[in-house]
């Protein structure tokens, strides 16, 4: 059965159409979920895509957390529903307390837009099906606030519980332990700074994001 994915749109979201195109191209179905509507329309999975939700005012994701849809997203996470936050979506999920840690400004204070190599650190999550630990993927980044930080206690907890999903092989932004993506304890909520939806065809420079999205759709 085709998996129906809800792609959340906040004021300032700008990657929702790329995300929907990638999902449809890879065999899923997708529709927009407006942030002001508390209903998830019975979708099977949720993506919080990239962009600048609520203008990134105060902190990235800080205001999006209060949008009516987020209560339903939190319940969906609790019930084990698959949720993927990409870039700004990752920031929203950390601010909402659905993922550990926080994302702050890149070391070097530059907006980064480049292809990056990331490595699968754990496949015990919704993105890992069909992949092996140590697999290398070429996926682009496009962010100013992608520098992952967390307390030493949280770091040792997420390392022990295999919640680090991706690491950069050449850390572009100063992230603690080169972290590019993490998941919750159950593995059903994943956040990542790289954009897999922009790496779904050789024409885009890489098709390595397709395996990640296919796993999410399976």
């Amino acid at each position, binding site marked *: 059965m085709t998996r129906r994915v809800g792609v959340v749109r906040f004021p300032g979201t700008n990657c929702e159409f790329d995300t929907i195109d990638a999902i449809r191209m890879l065999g899923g179905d997708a529709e927009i979920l407006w942030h002001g509507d508390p209903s998830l329309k019975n979708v099977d999975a949720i993506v919080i895509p990239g962009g600048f939700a609520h203008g990134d005012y*105060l*902190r990235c994701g*800080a205001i999006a957390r209060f949008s009516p849809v987020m209560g339903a997203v939190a319940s969906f996470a609790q019930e084990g529903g698959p949720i993927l936050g990409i870039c700004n979506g990752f920031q929203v999920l*950390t*601010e909402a307390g659905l993922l550990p*840690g*926080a994302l*702050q*400004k*890149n*070391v*070097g*204070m530059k907006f980064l837009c480049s292809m990056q190599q990331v490595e699968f650190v754990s496949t015990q999550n919704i993105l890992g099906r069909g992949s092996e630990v140590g697999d290398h993927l070429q996926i682009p980044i496009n962010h100013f606030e992608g*520098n992952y*930080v*967390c*307390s030493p206690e*949280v770091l040792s907890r997420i390392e022990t519980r295999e919640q680090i999903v991706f690491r950069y092989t050449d850390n572009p932004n*100063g992230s603690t332990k080169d972290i590019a993506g993490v998941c919750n304890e159950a593995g059903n909520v994943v956040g990542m700074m790289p954009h897999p939806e922009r790496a779904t065809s050789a024409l885009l420079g890489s098709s390595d994001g397709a395996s990640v999205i296919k796993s999410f759709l399976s």
Partner: protein
Amino acid sequence: MHFEAKIEVSPRDGIANPEGSTIERALPALGFKTTHNVRVGKLIRLEVEAESVDVAQSLVEDMCNRFLTNPVIEDASVEVLEV
């Protein structure tokens, strides 16, 4: 009663502060060669109604914990004045 609050949000000790580090590296170019430990945060001002200064203080601290700061990376110090 009417209060004005000043909230200073600063990066937590031990958390790298890329803005501060960048400014620190730029200052010597202008001849300021004795500067160190530059940290950049933000200042939030707001007005609040409350029965007493203590209530106003605790209201604003609650706002800081739940919304105005991210405790993973930021600390806040709150100053409340009656106006």
